[in-house]
């Protein structure tokens, strides 16, 4: 038996190999992660990555996989490569048997009667689900501070944010509480947390992973994707969850190219990699810019051709995003009214009309950021304002798509820092929504255009020693390119660092205890 401390640090791919070889059981692996969660997640100064821990069911699935493996034969042979490898699921994705809150009081205690398509696929692959991870309420935020259940802390520095909205999934993976996790990315909610926690996160091509069962924030932008510690691990998970789903009308009919093969056969020789002029430089932290330049240097040495591209309309992307996203969200969140499920609050006084019950429920159930976006979106869609706001934003969206189209005629893959800064301090931007929104300036264009993006660790910023993320972008349906380039850059960087970046992260167990002792 492997030391559990080592076990939880193994990549998903390595775990899968050990499981297949019988060197370790899924129950051992799953238990090791559950122990880790128990050790670092709870308490005053815990990471708070998990909103719900699903120990019993996870161990049962693990035991089932172990039994199948032990029995051998066709059923053991038929096991998915990730069978027995545990995973955490963002609490925006519905699961039978576990509560789904979306990080909101309005869904506290709600159990979904159905599984999201991606969850069905995890179950089909027999991956034990460790639990549900924390997020900004309804995925609205860039810091996970807008969760109704308290913020998640960044494992690199517990006083800092883990990014958002998927801070829970990124922190869980970074803190070795899970080898893999699912996230959702509407404007950067997978990639930006990946960047600030030193993990890998991928927003797949819009439509390549079913959204059925992901509680919608902005339907035309949302996409479920993998969170992991390595590029190959994300490719493995992406392949489990991807593919057509007849329950999602926006699901692409044809499968993507082999992503795992792309991650395994990484090669950038002769590849044209485009630096987006508008997505670095001014407004980006010096340490971020430095690590970005290092990455370019390494890619050049590996044989890539670095070109510069201009995407002039990206300067309007953030503005367009903050009209389209709240518009769709205002409608998507209308269903939370206390009539059929979730929280119901009765007005304290006055007549008990349906309007007043809905109003009291929504007033009590939604947090400030959610209300802010509902109000914004309701306004943007109002008669007389629609053309000026929602209509104009849709035009910008088309222009952003054209910028990408033009850029991809001269570059095979685009590159930028994932976020303009490293992780900021908890509370630092809570009272300044605009500053918070700016965190997503580099990730939003991909959502507007539906193209895939991957963030991987680029090293630590000189000034604060915190992780920096490098973002790769590819044309729609060319997700394989991200894995191909990402795997190369990852291996060059790890060679330079002498191991994975997360090996440089503080020893969390001690850190949690030390902080608590203070």
């Amino acid at each position, binding site marked *: 038996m492997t030391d559990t401390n080592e076990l939880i640090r193994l990549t998903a791919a390595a775990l899968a190999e050990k499981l297949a070889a019988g060197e370790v059981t899924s129950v051992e692996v799953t238990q090791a992660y559950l122990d880790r969660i128990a050790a670092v997640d709870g308490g005053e100064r815990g990471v708070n990555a998990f909103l719900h821990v699903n120990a019993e069911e996870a161990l049962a699935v693990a035991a089932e996989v172990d039994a199948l493996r032990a029995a051998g034969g066709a059923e053991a042979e038929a096991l998915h490569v990730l069978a027995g490898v545990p995973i955490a699921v963002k609490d925006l994705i*519905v699961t039978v048997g576990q509560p789904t809150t*979306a990080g909101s009081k309005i869904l506290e205690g709600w159990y979904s*009667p159905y599984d*999201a398509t991606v969850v069905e696929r995890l179950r089909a692959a027999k991956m034990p689900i460790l639990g549900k991870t924390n997020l900004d309420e309804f995925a609205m935020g860039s810091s996970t501070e807008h969760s109704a259940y308290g913020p998640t802390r960044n494992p690199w520095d517990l006083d800092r944010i883990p990014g958002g909205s998927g801070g829970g999934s990124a922190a869980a993976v970074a803190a070795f509480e899970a080898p893999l996790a699912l996230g959702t990315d509407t404007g950067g909610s997978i990639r930006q947390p990946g960047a600030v926690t030193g993990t890998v996160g991928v927003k797949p091509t819009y439509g390549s992973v079913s959204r059925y069962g992901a509680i919608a924030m902005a339907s035309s932008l949302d996409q479920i994707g993998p969170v992991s510690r390595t590029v190959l691990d994300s490719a493995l998970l992406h392949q489990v969850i991807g593919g057509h789903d007849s*329950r999602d009308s926006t699901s692409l009919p044809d499968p993507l190219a082999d992503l795992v093969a792309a991650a395994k056969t990484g090669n950038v020789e002769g590849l044209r990699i485009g630096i987006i002029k508008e997505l670095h430089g001014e407004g980006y932290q010096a340490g971020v810019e430095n690590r970005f330049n290092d990455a370019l240097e390494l890619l050049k040495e590996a044989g890539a051709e670095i070109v510069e591209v201009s995407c002039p309309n990206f300067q309007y992307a953030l503005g367009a995003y903050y009209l389209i996203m709240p518009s769709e969200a205002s409608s998507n969140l209308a269903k939370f*009214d206390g009539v059929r499920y979730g929280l119901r609050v009765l007005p304290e006084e006055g007549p008990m009309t349906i*309007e007043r019950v809905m109003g009291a429920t929504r007033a009590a159930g939604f947090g400030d950021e959610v209300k802010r976006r509902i109000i914004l979106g309701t306004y943007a869609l109002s008669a007389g304002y629609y053309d000026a706001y929602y209509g104009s934003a849709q035009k910008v969206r088309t222009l952003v798509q054209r910028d990408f189209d033009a850029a991809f005629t001269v570059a095979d893959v685009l590159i930028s820092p994932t976020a303009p800064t490293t992780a900021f301090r908890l509370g630092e931007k809570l009272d300044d929504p605009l500053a918070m929104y700016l965190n997503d300036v580099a990730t939003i264009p991909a959502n507007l255009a539906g193209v895939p993006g991957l963030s991987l660790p680029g090293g630590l910023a000189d000034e604060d020693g915190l992780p920096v993320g490098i973002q790769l972008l590819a044309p729609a349906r060319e997700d394989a390119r991200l894995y191909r380039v990402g795997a190369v850059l990852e291996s060059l960087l790890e060679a330079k660092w002498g191991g994975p970046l997360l090996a440089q992260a503080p020893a969390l167990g001690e850190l949690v205890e030390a902080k608590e002792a203070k």
Partner: protein
Amino acid sequence: MNPDAILSFEEAMEKYDPVLGFEVHVELNTKTKMFSSAPNVFGDEPNTNVNEVDLGMPGVLPVVNKAAIESSIKIGLALNCKIAESCRFARKNYFYPDTPKNFQTSQYDEPIAYDGYLDIELSDGTVFRVEIERAHMEEDAGKLTHMGGATGRIQGADFSLVDYNRAGVPLVEIVTKPIEGAGSRAPELAKAYVAAVREIVKNLGVSDAKMERGNVRCDANVSLRPHGRERFGIRSETKNVNSLRAVEHAVRYEIQRHAAVLDSGEPVIQETRHWHEDTRTTTSGRAKSDADDYRYFPEPDLVPVVPSREWVEELRATLPEPPAARRKRLQADWGYSDLEFRDVVNAGVMDEIEETIAAGASASVARKWWMGEIVGRAKNADVDPGQLGVQPATIVELARMVEEGKINNKMASEVLDGVLAGEGSPAEIVEKRGLAVVSDDGPLLEAIDAALAAQPDVADKIRGGKVQAIGAIVGGVMKATRGQADAGRVRELILEKLGVTA
């Protein structure tokens, strides 16, 4: 002014010119709902035909029902519409507990069918063309039942029950352009238009088309303008007028009400009105104003519907004969006069006559039986003629017996009563009741002699050439034979006896 004041219809027509507009909602009879795989079935236990999509559970997504699109295209084609090459759904946002998502998914500015027309034949044969603005797809809402309170409305109710079985049932909403120039025929046109739409969707087989079940629902818009003025007046929209008669009455009432309002010098309020079948009046519903902002935007969870031209043409080729064309054809085939045919149509027995003819009866025999015998019985029983359950074969058999002289018309009518009472087949009833035309001339001649003796003056008239007076003698003979004589033969024998040639 008194809000209930109305002018007489005639007075209203003297001063004003009505403009109508209709929104007819047609519930499609697809197996499953518009955006979910839950069954589309009427009348089941509440909240049984629902799944997570219909309940608007977190995370669900809609998927368009292809059969509903097919039905919608058929309706569009039958209404002579153009079919969009690409069209999208939109979200109509409003909070109401019968709408599980708090928005209705509906087509908004991109209907699947647009720019059509329907030629409506009025009772006197006048054809009036109604222009169709659009036919678009949408989903139905759930059904609320308000408990407690006096009105059955949500205001004043103690609580409300909601049944989501109907939520997500596919609807096609057919919207007319403003209908001008109907004048005093407006109420009749209103009824005829809705009847024509109902007939079309029934004929297409895309809807059960039962108004009493809400399969076809009509919102009627009415406005008035003084004669000679081009600009439309302010309209009212009377909601859910759910029978053909009610459509006619509601339009008539609203014309009378508007006229009274305009006469008083006050403006008509743009509002929805509720129709009350018991009093045949409308009452004020909700004021329509700019405050109604549904914040429409394209439904991002659905991709555009793009019906290929090939598919549209395939569907066009499968369309059944339009009802109006069919009527024209049948009238010509059957050789009925315009009046005869209109009576048949108005009596609602056209299909039955067609089936009876197909079973072997002649067109005149079929008409005689249905119009002369069955319609009257249906009226007495207060049911549709088709609901009496008379089989075409029964009529053919009765007609044959009469023709062969086995029974006469009077007996045949009696036999029909027996059939309807469930006593058996016509032959069995004739047997059981001992009905048979007396064909032996002996007893007849005796009866004729008696009848002639009883009415010598009539006998003289006939002898004098007034053959039409023969009825009295024939009647006497029939009475004496308790109707069992063959009236034709009786007539022959009388004439023979009196030495008169007819």
